[in-house]
């Protein structure tokens, strides 16, 4: 299948690949998917005292769409408040990357990873 230019760009030049210290109080980590399903996404956010996402990193085991979805998600997360971040919808990712129907689950995974990272941060910080 042919992928969109945007998707290919995120795949070839993924933004924000890396690892944040998951033990830091200011870091929230979301780990979703499973190796036997063919995709695992780890998305991390670092949140300022004011509640703004200052940094976001990801690592993803998966297909091109999964990698592009997580790269895009980290870009969108930076500078957002937790509430704004929590409202990112998987369909926004589908639209931006022009994901074909068979790849929609990659965007769902990204949304789940965002929500899980926010939840992890909130639980750590009692917010």
């Amino acid at each position: 299948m042919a992928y969109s230019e945007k998707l290919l760009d995120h795949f070839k030049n993924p933004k924000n690949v890396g690892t944040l210290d998951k033990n830091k109080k200011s870091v929230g980590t979301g780990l979703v998917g499973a190796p036997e399903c063919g995709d695992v996404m780890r998305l991390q956010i670092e949140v300022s005292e004011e509640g703004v996402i200052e940094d976001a990193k990801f690592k993803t085991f998966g297909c091109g769409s999964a990698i592009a979805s997580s790269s895009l998600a980290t870009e969108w997360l930076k500078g957002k408040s937790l509430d704004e971040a929590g409202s990112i919808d998987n369909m926004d990712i589908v639209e931006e990357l022009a994901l074909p129907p068979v790849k929609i689950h990659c965007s769902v995974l990204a949304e789940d990873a965002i929500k899980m990272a926010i939840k992890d941060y909130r639980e750590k910080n009692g917010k």
Partner: protein
Amino acid sequence: MLSLHCICLFKLNLNNEERYMDNNLIYFDNNATTPCDPRVVDAMLPWFYQNPGNAASRSHAFGWKAEEAVDYAREQVANLISVESKEIIFTSGATEADNLAIKGVFEMYSRKGNHIITLKTEHKAVLDACDRVEKMGGEVTYLDVDREGLVNLEELENAITDKTVLVSVMWANNETGVIQPMKEIGEICARKGVLFFSDATQAVGKIPVNPKETGVHLIAFTAHKMYGPKGVGALFVNRKKPRVKVVAQMDGGGHERGMRSGTLNVPGIVGFGKAAEIAKQEMEADAKRLSVLRDKLEKALEERLEEVYVNGSRTNRMPHVTNISFKHVEGEGLMMTFNENIAVSSGSACTSASLEPSYVLVALGLGDDLAHSSIRFSLGRFTKDEEIDRAIDLVANGVTHMRDLSPIWEMYKEGVDLDSIQWEAH
């Protein structure tokens, strides 16, 4: 006759450098389809325009000429597998030949029994035809294979009952290249008095296939896996000792002695014949050269990368194929790192419409994670030696890049036991 100068317009003058598509793109997907050999294309061209006859037209020269060409091609094809030309039924491809064999035998021998035995690793054309047989009231046993991808002969023998009419075992697997012990299976079938069919699509034209010596009664194969054109295949049906019959699955004008109605694809059949003739002469040398290249590719990747697994038997295997899992890297993502340079295929779910990884690799006992991480490299007659060196670099770099992106690779390197993690399966 149509004027000759027209043909010149169609004459292809392909030299070796223009052979396929884009010269920078390495084609390692010869198990999906092979490029049509330029010699085959040249043989086919006169049969589109200069000689347009229907091989079934008995009343004029156009028809006679076409029929002659088909007869000659039938000899060439039969000769490749050392059978009589009368034992070859031309079809539209291997899928149709598989269907004709399985459904045709099931219907023909319904008085004797209704049971078919096959393997879990067969091609979908066989498995889905067997599924149809079950819907028609038949019973099908799907045998497991071992870690090497090989059938257990004792299990196979024990599965045969007095209701068994057919054993269907593919000669060589399309995904792994694993070759089944055909002669031993043939002996079991002869001893038990059941028919033996083989989908030999991946084997014919690449390794010696001799159904008479092997005890195989029906064989399906196709031109486009042996450097011939797409859209033409054949079913070999043994005529003597035993005389095997199938019920036709296509009704119509009674072509192919009533076994397969439909106007013959004359240019395709001529090309199939030429491809068979070339294969007979060249397959030994091709196999020798390609196995050296395949082994070089495999060895270099194993040396340069950690956690590399070759799937299936390494001894009973087609000379031009390797199926490799690169642990903690997903196959489709990996392919995307090099698919501007190399064409391969993957057993990852992401390359199929379903979300399941390759059922063939799962049947070998690979975990789903390793099946998702698999890449099939299938070399071919037109593979150049230097392409192997380029491919080694591209693949090794791709795997390293994808592992840098992979959270489970990071965990593995940190010594985390991945089985201890509560994954969120979805």
